[in-house]
């Protein structure tokens, strides 16, 4: 007896009704759909449900246990918040894509086999790109295309891994893959693309800042966390992930430091936070896995809140750069307040949600005696506080008055942010709510005197550092004489290190990736012409001229040919060529057959 429906299917199927509703009914429906899905979650029974035979295999759409339920809850809550935030948007297509995207993420979470997982994985990639494209400008179109290329590549790697696994084991069941082997490495690669593990992260920081204001809220929640979920299930205890994760955590922060675009800064912060989760997965202890689940849960809530805050600023002020913003606290006090809740949560300030989840992973690294990891994670934590809770609000809401007359955003946006802020504080104050739904029993107590003191110390020193060198952090040359010269030299050396060697190293994969994508697009305009251009250039280099032509005329010809690219589409070849080709093939076939036998 099945009395529930896979929640992903509810959202995806429900999305198809959107175009048929109008006005108030539509808005009510948009909010109702996640609520129905949430109620549906409560009816789900542990175990395997919704097994559908397909091509001789069982597709399982309802693999339910505590882990998938925890992710299921937060995904549905986030779908609700995101939809509330996007309620003022008039385009059906955006809502449709958002539900498809959130629904497919839920689909992945409850998939019990690789094939249905892959199906939802692909829907997620292809619907996500629409959330970017709806910005309707050139930057977003290019970024979306690159996003798509990367995800299609990741999907192919995943599919290849799945197929190899199927051939080797004859089973499609989605279980632990931590044993190694080609299939699990390919699948890991596919997962890591979505988790934005450097050097495969470039799509995230490239695309999220270009997404629509409301779309970015959805994007920030689902793709990377779905990847965290599947990694958690398939690769927990895979040790290399610890180091990937710790590096990610620092990398994200270091790189966020250089950003001038508020949402790009937040995008790099996602990479940093996901780094914590990846590290936790690699440790694979009960405490760390609980921590990963908890951190994914709270991360979705506070990162959604941060993106909503940043989106509200962009929506009303129309600007997205630090250098163009400033002094907004007078006109947008509510937005500032709500944003700060998110910022304090991500910084793991006591009584905010991040405190109870992030500390679990950090403690787990201490339990495992992974001192360098612990150090890196703590460092990243301080950096996060510096960037998200101090630098971003300082330059956006305070700092130099930019003279922008921005109002508070629409009510639905404020309500969505309020709800998310409420949940963040609720979890921070009553962590038991969160701990009760974690996959393993929790005996972790976040609120010990020692822990609170330690955290507050780090935060206060970071804050002190910020106010002493805040002008340096604007990444603009500005000297103020009354700062102690040690700080000045120190901060300069630090900024030089971040801006030059570190950033060059970090930029490398991004630059390579962008260049490959751009090259493919260039080549795609006229591949045959491109190939012939390369060929004639090679001939020219080799001989110094084209046969039967003086050198300077050849050079001019070649130059013009490059200039005229892509030119007219493929030249038609006369039918005589084809006829000769037929004869050649015929002769080759016959002779080859004869030789072989």
């Amino acid at each position: 007896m099945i009395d529930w429906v896979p929640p992903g299917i509810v959202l995806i199927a429900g999305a198809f009704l959107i175009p048929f509703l109008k006005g108030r009914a539509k808005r009510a429906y948009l909010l109702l759909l996640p609520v129905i899905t949430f109620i549906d979650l409560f009816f789900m029974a542990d175990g395997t449900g919704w097994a559908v035979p397909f091509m001789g295999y069982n597709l399982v759409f309802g693999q339910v246990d505590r882990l998938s339920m925890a992710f299921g809850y937060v995904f549905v809550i986030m779908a609700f918040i995101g939809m509330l935030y996007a309620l003022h948007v008039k385009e059906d297509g955006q809502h449709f894509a958002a539900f498809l995207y959130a629904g497919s993420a839920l689909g992945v979470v409850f998939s019990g086999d690789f094939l249905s997982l892959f199906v939802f994985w692909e829907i997620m990639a292809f619907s996500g790109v629409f959330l970017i494209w709806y910005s309707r400008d050139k930057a977003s179109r290019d970024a979306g295309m690159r996003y798509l290329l990367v995800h299609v590549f990741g999907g192919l790697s995943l599919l290849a891994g799945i197929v190899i696994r199927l051939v080797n084991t004859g089973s499609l069941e989605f279980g632990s893959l931590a044993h190694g082997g080609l299939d699990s490495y390919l699948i890991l690669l596919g997962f890591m693309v979505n988790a934005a593990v450097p050097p495969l992260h470039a799509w995230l920081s490239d695309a999220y800042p270009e997404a629509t204001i409301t779309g970015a809220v959805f994007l920030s929640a689902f793709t990377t966390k779905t990847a965290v979920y599947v990694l958690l299930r398939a690769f927990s205890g895979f040790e290399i992930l610890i180091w990937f994760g710790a590096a990610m955590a620092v990398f994200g922060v270091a790189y966020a430091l250089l950003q001038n675009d508020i949402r790009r800064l937040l995008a790099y912060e996602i990479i940093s936070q996901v780094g914590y989760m990846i590290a936790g997965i690699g440790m694979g202890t009960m405490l760390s896995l609980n921590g990963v689940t908890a951190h994914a849960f709270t991360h979705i809530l506070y990162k959604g809140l941060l993106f909503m805050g940043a989106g509200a600023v962009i929506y009303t002020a129309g600007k997205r750069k630090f250098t163009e913003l400033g002094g907004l606290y007078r006109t947008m006090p509510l937005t500032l307040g709500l944003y700060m809740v998110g910022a304090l949560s991500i910084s793991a300030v006591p009584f905010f949600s991040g405190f109870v989840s992030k500390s679990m992973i950090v403690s787990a690294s201490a339990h495992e005696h992974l001192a360098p990891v612990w150090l890196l994670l703590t460092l990243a934590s301080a950096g996060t506080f510096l960037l998200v809770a101090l630098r971003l609000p300082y330059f956006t809401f305070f700092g130099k008055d930019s003279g922008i007359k921005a109002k508070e955003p629409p009510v639905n946006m404020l309500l969505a942010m309020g709800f998310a802020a409420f949940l963040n504080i609720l979890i921070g104050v009553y962590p038991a709510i969160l701990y009760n739904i974690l996959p393993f029993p929790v005996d972790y107590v976040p609120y010990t005197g020692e822990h609170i003191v330690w955290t507050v110390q780090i935060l206060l020193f970071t804050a002190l550092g910020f106010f002493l060198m805040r002008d340096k952090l604007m990444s603009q040359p500005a000297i103020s004489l009354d700062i102690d010269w040690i700080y000045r030299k120190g901060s300069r050396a630090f900024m030089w290190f971040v801006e030059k060697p570190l950033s060059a190293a970090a930029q490398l994969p991004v630059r390579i990736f962008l260049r490959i994508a751009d090259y493919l697009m260039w080549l795609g305009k006229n591949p045959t012409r491109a190939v012939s251009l390369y060929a004639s250039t090679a001939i020219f280099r080799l001989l110094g001229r084209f046969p039967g032509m003086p050198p300077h005329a050849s050079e001019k010809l070649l130059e013009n040919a490059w200039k005229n690219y892509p030119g007219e589409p493929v030249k038609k070849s006369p039918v005589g060529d084809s006829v000769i080709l037929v004869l050649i093939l015929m002769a080759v076939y016959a002779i080859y057959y004869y030789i072989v036998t």
Partner: protein
Amino acid sequence: MIEHFPVLIIAVGLLGAFFTPIIGLIRKELCSPWASLITLLQFLISIFLLYQVLAAGNISYWLGGWQPPWGIEYAIDILNAFVLVLVAGVCFSVSIYAKKSLGFEVPGKELPLYTLYILLSTGMLGIVVTGDIFNLYVFLEIGSLAAYALIAVGDRQSLMASFNYMIMGTISASFILLGIGYLYVMTGTLNMADLSERLPELYGRPVILVALALLVVGLSIKTALFPLHTWLPDAYTHAPSAVSAMLAGTFTKVGIYALIRVMFTVISPEYVIETVPVMNILSWVAAAGIVAGSVLAIAQYDIKRMLAYSSVSQIGYIILGVSMANKLAMTGGILHILSHSLMKVGLFMVAGAIIYRTGIRNIYQLKGMGKKMPFTMAAFVIGALSMIGIPPTIGFASKFYLAWGALEAENWVFVAVILLSSLLTAVYFWRIFENVYFGVHEHEEIKKDEVPLSMLLPILIFAAITLLLGLFASLPIGVIEHWVTGVLP
């Protein structure tokens, strides 16, 4: 009556074609419904034949009661019946679509057009239904001649396209005829079943090798297998859209059917796989074709031309699957006959619909089309997703089997080619999506302006089948696997 169905499917068509001009002389408008009626009859008969083959086993029909190998035999097994249903179904659906589309693109030519249309349909069904190899050649000529003429009625450049196609087609036909002639000279029989019994004694002889090469090259031209595809892009681009749709969905597929039939039924699988590496060479040619077709498709601006090059690539997939000659790949290849036919017919019909409403063929001018023709473009999206191989479409199922088969053969190059080409396919279709849905039209207000129902309905039905068969892919796969298990050792 029922036992005569195998010949009736042909007789109905020949008679129907004969009466079309007479009906057209009475009233021109009746030609199109008449063609639909005839193709519907053929479709129904083909469904019945498939049902009968599945229920009661292979059918052998003796024309005029003459016992084979002296008389002509119509031999139908699962593969024939499967392709029959596909071909007849496509011909019927496109005939409904053709009424408005042909009426717009080539007005006033109903009389010859529909006569040729029925002849083409009948020729293709004949190739599939017959068990006699010379009869196969005859039907191939009937179909090809009709196709040349149908292409020639298109736009201004269609005459040249048709002429090129005719030259290539004629070379192909003469190669095939020569191949058949050699086989006949050596064995003294034209019946396929009889040939397959007599040939093994002669396998050592060079004549058989020459015949084999002639048949492979001849059929490669007919199926537009790279690098002998040169006739196809021009023909599909300049033919009337309805004709392009029909040809893309059926004619090349029938050529592939003939290739499979000749290689695996007339000549034995062991011979073409192990003794002479016919299949091995074909598979590498096909792999090259997959990549080349996709790359060339990216370079196109004209939507029909792009679809045509995409066909070259997809035909590569089918031949690759068939020629890898393991059970999984073969199943995937034959399933891809079905899936490619469904998606490509749908896509060409959409291209025709766009031309019908706006006259636009350049894909960079398609901006705002998503608002103007929402249903048509939705169908296009489904077809394109299936081409890329995104689940849950039928295109995914067939590519999945192909990739699986390549893994089974442990040929990593083919695996890479299959997956890489998916990426390229995504590139050339996503470019269209981008323009259709996100391109901004600055000057004019876009109103919804869909094509007439008689055009929209077939488009939507093909999109729906692409999705539905993707969800219930085990249905066709079961049928195909049944046949493949019987053929491959």
